[in-house]
Protein backbone atom coordinates (compact mmCIF):
# COMPACT_ATOMS: atom_id res chain seq x y z
CA UNK A 1 0.00 0.00 0.00
CA UNK A 2 1.17 3.57 -0.68
CA UNK A 3 2.44 5.62 2.23
CA UNK A 4 0.06 7.16 4.77
CA UNK A 5 -1.05 10.61 3.68
CA UNK A 6 -1.18 9.95 -0.07
CA UNK A 7 -4.28 10.34 -2.28
CA UNK A 8 -4.92 6.59 -2.25
CA UNK A 9 -4.14 6.20 1.44
CA UNK A 10 -5.08 9.42 3.20
CA UNK A 11 -4.12 10.02 6.83
CA UNK A 12 -7.43 9.39 8.60
CA UNK A 13 -7.91 11.25 11.86
CA UNK A 14 -10.84 11.13 14.30
CA UNK A 15 -11.35 14.11 16.60
CA UNK A 16 -13.58 13.45 19.61
CA UNK A 17 -15.21 16.68 20.80
CA UNK A 18 -16.35 19.54 18.53
CA UNK A 19 -15.33 22.48 20.70
CA UNK A 20 -12.59 25.04 20.03
CA UNK A 21 -9.73 22.60 20.71
CA UNK A 22 -11.20 20.12 18.23
CA UNK A 23 -11.63 22.73 15.52
CA UNK A 24 -8.17 24.22 16.06
CA UNK A 25 -6.72 20.70 15.80
CA UNK A 26 -8.52 20.20 12.48
CA UNK A 27 -7.41 23.64 11.25
CA UNK A 28 -3.74 22.91 12.01
CA UNK A 29 -3.97 19.47 10.36
CA UNK A 30 -5.47 20.92 7.19
CA UNK A 31 -2.69 23.50 7.03
CA UNK A 32 -0.26 20.67 6.33
CA UNK A 33 0.51 20.66 2.60
CA UNK A 34 2.55 17.47 2.40
CA UNK A 35 -0.12 15.00 3.42
CA UNK A 36 -3.64 14.20 2.31
CA UNK A 37 -5.59 14.27 5.56
CA UNK A 38 -9.22 13.31 6.18
CA UNK A 39 -10.88 14.30 9.43
CA UNK A 40 -14.02 12.98 11.08
CA UNK A 41 -15.11 15.02 14.08
CA UNK A 42 -17.45 13.53 16.65
CA UNK A 43 -19.58 15.13 19.32
CA UNK A 44 -22.11 13.66 21.67
CA UNK A 45 -24.42 16.62 20.96
CA UNK A 46 -26.02 17.15 17.53
CA UNK A 47 -24.58 20.69 17.55
CA UNK A 48 -20.89 21.64 17.28
CA UNK A 49 -18.74 24.34 18.99
CA UNK A 50 -18.73 23.07 22.58
CA UNK A 51 -18.44 25.85 25.14
CA UNK A 52 -18.73 28.56 22.49
CA UNK A 53 -22.36 27.52 22.25
CA UNK A 54 -22.94 26.19 25.77
CA UNK A 55 -20.44 28.16 27.87
CA UNK A 56 -19.84 31.65 26.49
CA UNK A 57 -22.47 33.94 27.99
CA UNK A 58 -25.49 34.72 25.80
CA UNK A 59 -24.91 38.47 26.22
CA UNK A 60 -21.40 38.09 24.76
CA UNK A 61 -22.34 37.38 21.17
CA UNK A 62 -19.17 38.90 19.78
CA UNK A 63 -17.02 36.22 21.41
CA UNK A 64 -19.12 33.64 19.59
CA UNK A 65 -18.02 35.03 16.21
CA UNK A 66 -15.09 32.59 16.37
CA UNK A 67 -17.53 29.96 15.05
CA UNK A 68 -17.08 31.54 11.61
CA UNK A 69 -13.44 30.44 11.69
CA UNK A 70 -14.53 26.95 12.74
CA UNK A 71 -17.17 26.80 9.99
CA UNK A 72 -14.49 27.53 7.40
CA UNK A 73 -12.58 24.47 8.62
CA UNK A 74 -15.75 22.39 8.55
CA UNK A 75 -16.36 23.34 4.92
CA UNK A 76 -13.16 21.58 3.82
CA UNK A 77 -14.35 18.66 1.61
CA UNK A 78 -12.15 16.28 3.61
CA UNK A 79 -13.95 17.12 6.86
CA UNK A 80 -17.02 15.32 8.20
CA UNK A 81 -18.98 16.02 11.37
CA UNK A 82 -20.80 13.27 13.23
CA UNK A 83 -22.96 14.91 15.86
CA UNK A 84 -25.12 13.04 18.36
CA UNK A 85 -22.52 10.25 18.40
CA UNK A 86 -21.03 9.52 21.79
CA UNK A 87 -17.56 8.10 22.29
CA UNK A 88 -17.66 5.01 24.48
CA UNK A 89 -21.36 4.50 23.81
CA UNK A 90 -21.96 4.47 20.05
CA UNK A 91 -18.30 4.06 19.13
CA UNK A 92 -15.73 2.47 21.40
CA UNK A 93 -12.01 3.10 21.37
CA UNK A 94 -11.45 -0.22 19.58
CA UNK A 95 -13.93 0.77 16.83
CA UNK A 96 -11.99 3.95 16.22
CA UNK A 97 -8.64 2.19 16.36
CA UNK A 98 -9.89 -0.12 13.58
CA UNK A 99 -10.76 2.83 11.31
CA UNK A 100 -8.31 5.66 11.97
CA UNK A 101 -4.57 6.23 12.00
CA UNK A 102 -4.93 8.72 14.81
CA UNK A 103 -7.56 9.76 17.34
CA UNK A 104 -7.45 13.14 19.09
CA UNK A 105 -9.50 13.66 22.24
CA UNK A 106 -10.70 17.23 22.73
CA UNK A 107 -13.60 16.71 25.10
CA UNK A 108 -12.87 19.64 27.41
CA UNK A 109 -13.49 19.86 31.13
CA UNK A 110 -17.10 19.01 31.73
CA UNK A 111 -17.50 19.16 35.48
CA UNK A 112 -16.71 21.58 38.27
CA UNK A 113 -13.93 21.31 40.78
CA UNK A 114 -15.23 20.31 44.17
CA UNK A 115 -15.18 22.60 47.14
CA UNK A 116 -14.87 20.47 50.25
CA UNK A 117 -16.67 22.38 52.97
CA UNK A 118 -19.52 21.29 55.25
CA UNK A 119 -22.96 21.85 53.74
CA UNK A 120 -21.74 22.10 50.18
CA UNK A 121 -24.35 19.54 49.04
CA UNK A 122 -27.31 21.35 50.64
CA UNK A 123 -30.28 22.17 48.40
CA UNK A 124 -29.82 25.43 46.48
CA UNK A 125 -26.03 24.97 46.31
CA UNK A 126 -25.07 24.42 42.67
CA UNK A 127 -22.06 24.22 40.44
CA UNK A 128 -21.93 27.42 38.42
CA UNK A 129 -21.14 25.30 35.37
CA UNK A 130 -24.61 23.73 35.63
CA UNK A 131 -26.30 27.12 35.76
CA UNK A 132 -24.23 28.25 32.75
CA UNK A 133 -25.13 25.13 30.74
CA UNK A 134 -28.79 25.59 31.76
CA UNK A 135 -29.14 29.21 30.65
CA UNK A 136 -27.26 28.39 27.45
CA UNK A 137 -29.72 25.64 26.53
CA UNK A 138 -27.43 22.62 26.81
CA UNK A 139 -29.75 19.61 26.29
CA UNK A 140 -28.33 17.74 29.32
CA UNK A 141 -29.07 20.61 31.69
CA UNK A 142 -32.37 22.04 30.47
CA UNK A 143 -34.37 20.17 33.11
CA UNK A 144 -32.50 21.67 36.06
CA UNK A 145 -34.29 24.06 38.35
CA UNK A 146 -32.80 26.94 40.25
CA UNK A 147 -34.60 28.59 43.14
CA UNK A 148 -34.78 32.15 41.85
CA UNK A 149 -37.31 33.07 44.55
CA UNK A 150 -34.29 33.67 46.80
CA UNK A 151 -33.33 37.31 47.26
CA UNK A 152 -29.70 36.86 48.23
CA UNK A 153 -27.25 34.84 46.16
CA UNK A 154 -23.55 34.08 46.57
CA UNK A 155 -21.25 33.22 43.70
CA UNK A 156 -18.06 31.60 45.01
CA UNK A 157 -15.17 32.64 42.79
CA UNK A 158 -14.01 35.68 40.86
CA UNK A 159 -13.10 34.21 37.48
CA UNK A 160 -14.87 35.05 34.26
CA UNK A 161 -17.42 32.25 34.74
CA UNK A 162 -18.35 33.68 38.14
CA UNK A 163 -18.65 37.12 36.52
CA UNK A 164 -20.94 35.66 33.83
CA UNK A 165 -23.20 34.04 36.42
CA UNK A 166 -23.39 37.18 38.55
CA UNK A 167 -24.05 39.38 35.51
CA UNK A 168 -26.80 37.12 34.11
CA UNK A 169 -28.47 37.14 37.56
CA UNK A 170 -28.34 40.95 37.57
CA UNK A 171 -29.54 41.58 34.02
CA UNK A 172 -33.09 42.80 33.41
CA UNK A 173 -35.47 40.64 31.34
CA UNK A 174 -35.26 43.33 28.63
CA UNK A 175 -31.48 43.04 28.51
CA UNK A 176 -31.66 39.24 28.44
CA UNK A 177 -34.31 39.23 25.71
CA UNK A 178 -31.73 40.72 23.37
CA UNK A 179 -29.50 37.66 23.78
CA UNK A 180 -29.75 34.04 22.67
CA UNK A 181 -30.33 32.81 26.23
CA UNK A 182 -32.48 29.64 26.32
CA UNK A 183 -36.18 30.55 26.23
CA UNK A 184 -37.02 28.65 29.45
CA UNK A 185 -34.13 30.42 31.23
CA UNK A 186 -35.37 33.81 30.04
CA UNK A 187 -38.80 32.93 31.38
CA UNK A 188 -37.43 31.77 34.75
CA UNK A 189 -35.19 34.83 35.11
CA UNK A 190 -38.13 37.08 34.23
CA UNK A 191 -39.69 35.99 37.53
CA UNK A 192 -36.45 36.12 39.49
CA UNK A 193 -36.66 37.77 42.91
CA UNK A 194 -32.91 38.06 43.27
CA UNK A 195 -31.98 41.37 44.89
CA UNK A 196 -28.40 40.98 46.04
CA UNK A 197 -25.60 39.01 44.44
CA UNK A 198 -22.28 38.51 46.23
CA UNK A 199 -19.15 37.48 44.37
CA UNK A 200 -16.54 36.02 46.71
CA UNK A 201 -12.81 36.02 46.02
CA UNK A 202 -10.25 34.27 48.23
CA UNK A 203 -7.51 36.69 47.34
CA UNK A 204 -7.43 40.41 46.56
CA UNK A 205 -8.46 42.37 43.46
CA UNK A 206 -4.95 42.06 41.95
CA UNK A 207 -5.14 38.25 42.02
CA UNK A 208 -8.71 37.90 40.75
CA UNK A 209 -8.93 35.76 37.62
CA UNK A 210 -11.48 37.97 35.87
CA UNK A 211 -10.22 40.13 33.01
CA UNK A 212 -10.60 43.94 32.83
CA UNK A 213 -13.39 44.11 30.19
CA UNK A 214 -15.46 41.53 32.10
CA UNK A 215 -15.23 43.34 35.43
CA UNK A 216 -15.76 46.76 33.81
CA UNK A 217 -19.03 45.52 32.35
CA UNK A 218 -20.32 44.88 35.90
CA UNK A 219 -20.31 48.61 36.46
CA UNK A 220 -22.53 49.23 33.44
CA UNK A 221 -25.58 47.09 34.21
CA UNK A 222 -28.95 48.66 33.46
CA UNK A 223 -30.64 47.92 36.76
CA UNK A 224 -27.97 46.77 39.21
CA UNK A 225 -25.64 48.88 41.32
CA UNK A 226 -22.18 47.49 41.86
CA UNK A 227 -20.35 47.87 45.15
CA UNK A 228 -17.04 46.80 46.72
CA UNK A 229 -16.29 47.30 50.43
CA UNK A 230 -13.50 49.95 50.33
CA UNK A 231 -11.28 48.05 52.77
CA UNK A 232 -11.37 45.00 50.47
CA UNK A 233 -10.68 46.99 47.30
CA UNK A 234 -7.53 48.45 48.81
CA UNK A 235 -4.36 46.53 47.97
CA UNK A 236 -2.37 44.98 50.79
CA UNK A 237 1.35 45.86 50.91
CA UNK A 238 2.42 42.54 49.31
CA UNK A 239 0.09 42.96 46.33
CA UNK A 240 1.10 46.57 45.96
CA UNK A 241 4.80 45.67 45.88
CA UNK A 242 4.24 42.80 43.49
CA UNK A 243 2.19 44.96 41.13
CA UNK A 244 4.76 47.76 41.19
CA UNK A 245 7.39 45.14 40.41
CA UNK A 246 5.64 43.50 37.49
CA UNK A 247 4.04 46.71 36.16
CA UNK A 248 1.42 44.48 34.54
CA UNK A 249 -1.04 46.81 32.84
CA UNK A 250 -3.89 44.32 32.75
CA UNK A 251 -3.72 43.82 36.51
CA UNK A 252 -3.37 47.53 37.17
CA UNK A 253 -6.48 48.21 35.09
CA UNK A 254 -8.39 45.50 36.93
CA UNK A 255 -7.48 46.96 40.31
CA UNK A 256 -8.38 50.46 39.11
CA UNK A 257 -11.84 49.31 38.01
CA UNK A 258 -12.48 47.46 41.28
CA UNK A 259 -11.38 50.50 43.28
CA UNK A 260 -13.66 52.75 41.24
CA UNK A 261 -16.58 50.54 42.38
CA UNK A 262 -15.59 51.00 46.02
CA UNK A 263 -16.53 54.64 46.06
CA UNK A 264 -19.90 54.19 44.40
CA UNK A 265 -23.10 55.29 46.04
CA UNK A 266 -26.32 53.36 45.40
CA UNK A 267 -28.30 54.97 42.58
CA UNK A 268 -31.60 53.31 43.41
CA UNK A 269 -31.35 50.43 40.96
CA UNK A 270 -33.37 47.39 41.95
CA UNK A 271 -30.47 45.00 42.32
CA UNK A 272 -27.10 45.20 43.99
CA UNK A 273 -23.95 43.32 43.03
CA UNK A 274 -21.29 43.17 45.72
CA UNK A 275 -17.73 42.09 45.01
CA UNK A 276 -15.99 40.76 48.10
CA UNK A 277 -12.29 39.99 48.39
CA UNK A 278 -10.06 38.11 50.84
CA UNK A 279 -12.87 35.87 52.07
CA UNK A 280 -13.34 32.09 51.86
CA UNK A 281 -16.51 30.16 52.59
CA UNK A 282 -15.87 27.63 55.37
CA UNK A 283 -19.37 26.19 55.64
CA UNK A 284 -22.87 26.44 54.23
CA UNK A 285 -25.62 26.50 56.83
CA UNK A 286 -28.96 24.85 56.09
CA UNK A 287 -32.52 25.48 57.24
CA UNK A 288 -34.93 22.81 58.52
CA UNK A 289 -35.67 21.72 54.92
CA UNK A 290 -32.03 21.15 54.07
CA UNK A 291 -31.80 24.32 51.99
CA UNK A 292 -28.99 26.85 52.19
CA UNK A 293 -29.85 29.79 54.41
CA UNK A 294 -26.44 31.24 55.14
CA UNK A 295 -22.75 30.94 54.55
CA UNK A 296 -19.92 31.14 57.05
CA UNK A 297 -16.97 33.13 55.77
CA UNK A 298 -13.44 33.52 57.05
CA UNK A 299 -11.40 36.59 56.37
CA UNK A 300 -8.08 35.83 54.65
CA UNK A 301 -4.72 37.50 54.55
CA UNK A 302 -2.12 37.05 51.84
CA UNK A 303 1.37 35.63 52.15
CA UNK A 304 4.04 35.10 49.50
CA UNK A 305 5.09 31.54 48.60
CA UNK A 306 8.74 30.75 47.93
CA UNK A 307 8.03 30.94 44.21
CA UNK A 308 6.54 34.41 44.60
CA UNK A 309 2.80 33.75 44.35
CA UNK A 310 0.54 35.53 46.82
CA UNK A 311 -1.67 32.94 48.49
CA UNK A 312 -4.55 33.31 50.95
CA UNK A 313 -4.43 32.08 54.51
CA UNK A 314 -7.31 32.26 56.98
CA UNK A 315 -7.30 34.68 59.90
CA UNK A 316 -9.40 34.24 63.04
CA UNK A 317 -12.12 36.62 61.85
CA UNK A 318 -15.40 35.07 60.76
CA UNK A 319 -18.69 36.43 59.52
CA UNK A 320 -22.01 35.01 58.43
CA UNK A 321 -23.60 35.97 55.16
CA UNK A 322 -27.31 35.28 54.72
CA UNK A 323 -27.84 33.76 51.29
CA UNK A 324 -30.46 31.35 49.97
CA UNK A 325 -28.77 30.32 46.74
CA UNK A 326 -25.11 29.48 46.09
CA UNK A 327 -23.16 28.98 42.88
CA UNK A 328 -19.70 27.46 43.08
CA UNK A 329 -17.35 28.67 40.40
CA UNK A 330 -13.87 27.62 41.39
CA UNK A 331 -12.91 25.96 38.13
CA UNK A 332 -13.74 23.18 35.74
CA UNK A 333 -12.37 19.64 35.77
CA UNK A 334 -12.06 16.98 33.06
CA UNK A 335 -14.00 13.72 33.08
CA UNK A 336 -12.29 10.40 32.18
CA UNK A 337 -13.22 8.83 28.84
CA UNK A 338 -13.83 5.07 28.57
CA UNK A 339 -10.58 3.16 27.84
CA UNK A 340 -8.46 6.33 27.78
CA UNK A 341 -5.79 6.75 30.51
CA UNK A 342 -6.56 9.56 32.93
CA UNK A 343 -4.34 11.63 35.18
CA UNK A 344 -6.48 12.03 38.25
CA UNK A 345 -4.19 14.53 39.93
CA UNK A 346 -4.81 17.24 37.32
CA UNK A 347 -8.11 15.97 35.95
CA UNK A 348 -6.77 15.51 32.42
CA UNK A 349 -6.01 12.67 29.99
CA UNK A 350 -2.58 11.29 30.88
CA UNK A 351 -0.34 12.88 28.27
CA UNK A 352 2.97 14.39 27.34
CA UNK A 353 2.66 17.40 25.03
CA UNK A 354 -0.58 15.90 23.71
CA UNK A 355 0.60 12.30 23.19
CA UNK A 356 -1.56 10.03 25.35
CA UNK A 357 0.64 7.92 27.64
CA UNK A 358 0.36 4.37 28.86
CA UNK A 359 0.09 4.61 32.69
CA UNK A 360 2.34 1.57 33.17
CA UNK A 361 5.22 2.42 30.89
CA UNK A 362 4.70 6.21 30.66
CA UNK A 363 5.33 5.73 26.93
CA UNK A 364 3.03 7.13 24.20
CA UNK A 365 0.18 4.89 23.07
CA UNK A 366 0.41 4.86 19.26
CA UNK A 367 -2.23 6.95 17.53
CA UNK A 368 -3.81 8.53 20.61
CA UNK A 369 -3.59 12.29 21.19
CA UNK A 370 -5.31 15.01 23.14
CA UNK A 371 -5.69 18.79 23.00
CA UNK A 372 -7.46 21.60 24.84
CA UNK A 373 -8.75 21.55 28.40
CA UNK A 374 -8.78 17.75 28.66
CA UNK A 375 -5.03 17.91 27.89
CA UNK A 376 -3.80 20.83 30.04
CA UNK A 377 -6.72 21.57 32.35
CA UNK A 378 -9.03 24.58 32.15
CA UNK A 379 -7.03 27.72 31.47
CA UNK A 380 -6.92 30.69 29.17
CA UNK A 381 -9.33 32.08 26.61
CA UNK A 382 -10.78 30.33 23.54
CA UNK A 383 -7.70 31.23 21.47
CA UNK A 384 -5.34 29.60 24.01
CA UNK A 385 -6.48 26.29 22.54
CA UNK A 386 -4.93 27.19 19.21
CA UNK A 387 -1.24 27.01 20.23
CA UNK A 388 -2.18 24.08 22.45
CA UNK A 389 -3.67 22.19 19.50
CA UNK A 390 -0.65 23.09 17.40
CA UNK A 391 1.68 21.34 19.86
CA UNK A 392 -0.46 18.19 19.61
CA UNK A 393 -0.64 18.33 15.81
CA UNK A 394 3.14 18.74 15.61
CA UNK A 395 3.57 15.55 17.68
CA UNK A 396 1.04 13.75 15.48
CA UNK A 397 2.77 14.79 12.25
CA UNK A 398 6.18 13.83 13.63
CA UNK A 399 4.72 10.41 14.43
CA UNK A 400 3.43 10.06 10.85
CA UNK A 401 7.02 10.54 9.68
CA UNK A 402 8.38 8.02 12.15
CA UNK A 403 5.66 5.48 11.42
CA UNK A 404 4.33 5.54 14.98
CA UNK A 405 0.62 5.75 14.22
CA UNK A 406 -2.07 3.10 14.31
CA UNK A 407 -2.38 0.55 11.52
CA UNK A 408 -6.17 0.35 11.24
CA UNK A 409 -7.71 -2.76 9.69
CA UNK A 410 -10.19 -0.69 7.76
CA UNK A 411 -9.06 2.90 7.13
CA UNK A 412 -11.94 3.62 4.82
CA UNK A 413 -14.24 6.64 5.05
CA UNK A 414 -17.19 4.57 3.81
CA UNK A 415 -16.67 1.77 6.31
CA UNK A 416 -16.79 4.01 9.37
CA UNK A 417 -19.80 5.87 7.96
CA UNK A 418 -21.60 2.55 7.72
CA UNK A 419 -20.68 1.69 11.28
CA UNK A 420 -21.93 5.07 12.55
CA UNK A 421 -25.19 4.59 10.65
CA UNK A 422 -25.70 1.21 12.30
CA UNK A 423 -24.81 2.33 15.82
CA UNK A 424 -26.49 5.75 15.74
CA UNK A 425 -29.00 6.19 12.93
CA UNK A 426 -29.78 9.66 14.32
CA UNK A 427 -26.31 11.08 13.75
CA UNK A 428 -26.14 14.66 12.49
CA UNK A 429 -23.85 16.07 9.79
CA UNK A 430 -22.42 19.57 9.54
CA UNK A 431 -25.05 20.34 6.88
CA UNK A 432 -27.67 19.30 9.45
CA UNK A 433 -26.15 21.73 11.91
CA UNK A 434 -26.18 24.51 9.31
CA UNK A 435 -29.90 23.89 8.81
CA UNK A 436 -30.49 23.99 12.57
CA UNK A 437 -28.44 27.16 12.75
CA UNK A 438 -30.58 28.84 10.06
CA UNK A 439 -33.78 27.72 11.78
CA UNK A 440 -32.61 29.00 15.17
CA UNK A 441 -31.68 32.39 13.73
CA UNK A 442 -34.97 32.65 11.82
CA UNK A 443 -37.03 31.69 14.91
CA UNK A 444 -35.10 34.31 16.84
CA UNK A 445 -35.59 37.06 14.30
CA UNK A 446 -39.34 36.50 14.40
CA UNK A 447 -39.35 37.56 18.05
CA UNK A 448 -36.57 40.13 17.86
CA UNK A 449 -33.79 37.99 19.31
CA UNK A 450 -30.45 37.00 17.73
CA UNK A 451 -31.32 33.32 17.95
CA UNK A 452 -33.83 31.01 19.56
CA UNK A 453 -31.98 27.84 20.45
CA UNK A 454 -33.23 24.30 20.19
CA UNK A 455 -32.54 22.90 23.61
CA UNK A 456 -33.41 19.22 23.37
CA UNK A 457 -31.95 16.58 21.11
CA UNK A 458 -35.43 15.34 20.22
CA UNK A 459 -36.51 18.83 19.21
CA UNK A 460 -33.43 19.12 16.99
CA UNK A 461 -33.99 15.75 15.33
CA UNK A 462 -37.63 16.58 14.71
CA UNK A 463 -36.75 19.93 13.19
CA UNK A 464 -34.37 18.10 10.87
CA UNK A 465 -37.06 15.61 9.93
CA UNK A 466 -35.04 12.73 11.31
CA UNK A 467 -37.71 11.69 13.80
Amino acid at each position, binding site marked *: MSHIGSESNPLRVAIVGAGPAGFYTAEHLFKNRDLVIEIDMYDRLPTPFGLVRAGVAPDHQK*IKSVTRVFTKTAENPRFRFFGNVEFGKHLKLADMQAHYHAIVFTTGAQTDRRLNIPGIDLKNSHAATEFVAWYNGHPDYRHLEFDLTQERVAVIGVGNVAVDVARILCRTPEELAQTDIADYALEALRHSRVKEVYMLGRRGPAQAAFTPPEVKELGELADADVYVPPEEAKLDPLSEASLADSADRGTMRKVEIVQSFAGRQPTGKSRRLVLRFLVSPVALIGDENGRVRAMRLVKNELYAT*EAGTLRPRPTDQYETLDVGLVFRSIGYRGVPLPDVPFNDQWGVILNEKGRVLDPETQQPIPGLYTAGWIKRGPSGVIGTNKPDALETVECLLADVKNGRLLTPANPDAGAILQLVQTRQPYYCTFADWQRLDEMEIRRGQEIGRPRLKFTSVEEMLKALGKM
Partner: protein
Amino acid sequence: MKVSSILATKGTDIISIRPEQQIREAIQLLTRHNIGALVVVDENGRLAGIISERDIIRKAAETEALFSLPISAVMTRHVITGMPQDDLMSVANTMTERRFRHLPITDGERLVGMISIGDVLKAQRDKFRGEIDTLETQLMADDE
Protein backbone atom coordinates in the same frame (compact mmCIF):
# COMPACT_ATOMS: atom_id res chain seq x y z
CA MET B 1 -2.67 30.39 34.47
CA LYS B 2 -1.28 28.02 37.08
CA VAL B 3 1.81 25.83 37.31
CA SER B 4 -0.53 22.80 37.27
CA SER B 5 -1.41 23.40 33.61
CA ILE B 6 2.27 22.93 32.73
CA LEU B 7 2.53 19.75 34.79
CA ALA B 8 -0.66 18.40 33.19
CA THR B 9 1.10 17.84 29.85
CA LYS B 10 4.25 16.26 31.30
CA GLY B 11 3.02 12.78 32.19
CA THR B 12 3.51 11.65 35.79
CA ASP B 13 7.10 10.43 35.70
CA ILE B 14 9.57 12.58 37.57
CA ILE B 15 13.16 12.00 36.53
CA SER B 16 15.05 11.85 39.79
CA ILE B 17 18.28 10.57 41.28
CA ARG B 18 19.49 9.58 44.77
CA PRO B 19 22.20 11.51 46.67
CA GLU B 20 24.53 8.49 46.79
CA GLN B 21 24.49 7.87 43.03
CA GLN B 22 27.36 9.13 40.89
CA ILE B 23 27.61 12.16 38.70
CA ARG B 24 28.12 9.96 35.62
CA GLU B 25 24.63 8.55 36.18
CA ALA B 26 23.21 12.05 36.41
CA ILE B 27 24.84 12.97 33.12
CA GLN B 28 23.39 9.86 31.50
CA LEU B 29 19.90 10.68 32.74
CA LEU B 30 20.14 14.32 31.66
CA THR B 31 21.22 13.22 28.19
CA ARG B 32 18.72 10.41 27.82
CA HIS B 33 15.78 12.62 28.75
CA ASN B 34 17.15 15.76 27.13
CA ILE B 35 16.65 17.86 30.26
CA GLY B 36 18.76 20.32 32.24
CA ALA B 37 18.30 19.28 35.86
CA LEU B 38 17.30 16.38 38.07
CA VAL B 39 15.56 16.37 41.40
CA VAL B 40 17.49 14.54 44.09
CA VAL B 41 15.33 12.48 46.41
CA ASP B 42 16.24 10.53 49.53
CA GLU B 43 15.24 6.93 50.29
CA ASN B 44 11.82 8.13 51.50
CA GLY B 45 11.13 9.96 48.26
CA ARG B 46 11.60 13.33 49.93
CA LEU B 47 13.26 16.18 48.10
CA ALA B 48 16.95 16.38 49.11
CA GLY B 49 18.20 18.80 46.50
CA ILE B 50 18.52 19.54 42.83
CA ILE B 51 21.38 18.92 40.44
CA SER B 52 21.66 20.93 37.26
CA GLU B 53 23.97 21.03 34.25
CA ARG B 54 25.41 24.18 35.74
CA ASP B 55 26.22 22.49 39.07
CA ILE B 56 28.05 19.76 37.16
CA ILE B 57 30.02 22.19 34.96
CA ARG B 58 31.03 24.20 37.99
CA LYS B 59 32.38 21.08 39.68
CA ALA B 60 34.09 19.98 36.45
CA ALA B 61 36.10 23.19 36.54
CA GLU B 62 37.39 22.17 39.98
CA THR B 63 38.17 18.50 39.68
CA GLU B 64 39.04 15.84 37.14
CA ALA B 65 37.42 13.21 39.38
CA LEU B 66 33.98 14.60 38.63
CA PHE B 67 32.37 11.49 37.15
CA SER B 68 32.70 9.31 40.21
CA LEU B 69 31.68 11.94 42.76
CA PRO B 70 28.41 11.30 44.60
CA ILE B 71 25.48 13.53 43.68
CA SER B 72 25.39 14.78 47.29
CA ALA B 73 28.82 16.41 46.79
CA VAL B 74 27.62 18.49 43.87
CA MET B 75 23.91 19.10 44.28
CA THR B 76 22.30 22.30 45.44
CA ARG B 77 20.75 21.59 48.82
CA HIS B 78 18.72 24.67 49.42
CA VAL B 79 15.99 24.31 46.85
CA ILE B 80 13.24 26.78 46.19
CA THR B 81 10.06 24.85 45.44
CA GLY B 82 6.79 25.81 43.84
CA MET B 83 3.22 24.62 44.30
CA PRO B 84 0.73 23.48 41.65
CA GLN B 85 -1.47 26.50 42.47
CA ASP B 86 1.35 29.02 41.96
CA ASP B 87 0.57 31.66 39.33
CA LEU B 88 2.62 31.31 36.20
CA MET B 89 3.38 35.02 36.03
CA SER B 90 4.81 35.25 39.52
CA VAL B 91 6.82 32.06 39.04
CA ALA B 92 8.27 33.47 35.80
CA ASN B 93 9.16 36.64 37.64
CA THR B 94 10.81 34.82 40.55
CA MET B 95 12.82 32.51 38.29
CA THR B 96 14.08 35.43 36.20
CA GLU B 97 14.90 37.69 39.14
CA ARG B 98 16.62 35.04 41.21
CA ARG B 99 18.28 33.43 38.22
CA PHE B 100 17.35 29.79 38.51
CA ARG B 101 16.07 27.67 35.68
CA HIS B 102 14.36 24.72 37.33
CA LEU B 103 11.66 24.63 39.94
CA PRO B 104 10.58 21.39 41.66
CA ILE B 105 6.87 21.44 42.44
CA THR B 106 5.56 19.98 45.66
CA ASP B 107 2.06 19.41 46.93
CA GLY B 108 2.41 19.42 50.70
CA GLU B 109 5.31 17.02 51.34
CA ARG B 110 4.94 15.23 48.05
CA LEU B 111 7.07 15.99 44.99
CA VAL B 112 4.71 16.21 41.99
CA GLY B 113 6.94 17.44 39.18
CA MET B 114 9.49 19.89 37.95
CA ILE B 115 9.17 22.81 35.57
CA SER B 116 11.91 24.62 33.68
CA ILE B 117 12.17 28.25 32.65
CA GLY B 118 11.63 26.95 29.10
CA ASP B 119 8.27 25.45 30.12
CA VAL B 120 7.28 28.72 31.77
CA LEU B 121 8.24 30.83 28.76
CA LYS B 122 6.40 28.51 26.39
CA ALA B 123 3.26 28.65 28.53
CA GLN B 124 3.46 32.44 28.65
CA ARG B 125 4.02 32.64 24.90
CA ASP B 126 1.00 30.40 24.25
CA LYS B 127 -1.10 32.42 26.65
CA PHE B 128 -0.26 35.65 24.82
CA ARG B 129 -0.71 34.04 21.39
CA GLY B 130 -4.10 32.77 22.43
CA GLU B 131 -5.20 36.16 23.71
CA ILE B 132 -4.01 37.86 20.52
CA ASP B 133 -5.83 35.33 18.38
CA THR B 134 -9.07 35.78 20.30
CA LEU B 135 -8.84 39.58 20.10
CA GLU B 136 -8.07 39.45 16.37
CA THR B 137 -11.06 37.20 15.72
CA GLN B 138 -13.32 39.66 17.53
CA LEU B 139 -11.86 42.66 15.69
CA MET B 140 -12.45 40.94 12.37
CA ALA B 141 -16.04 40.26 13.41
CA ASP B 142 -16.42 44.01 14.09
CA ASP B 143 -15.28 44.78 10.56
CA GLU B 144 -18.10 42.82 9.01
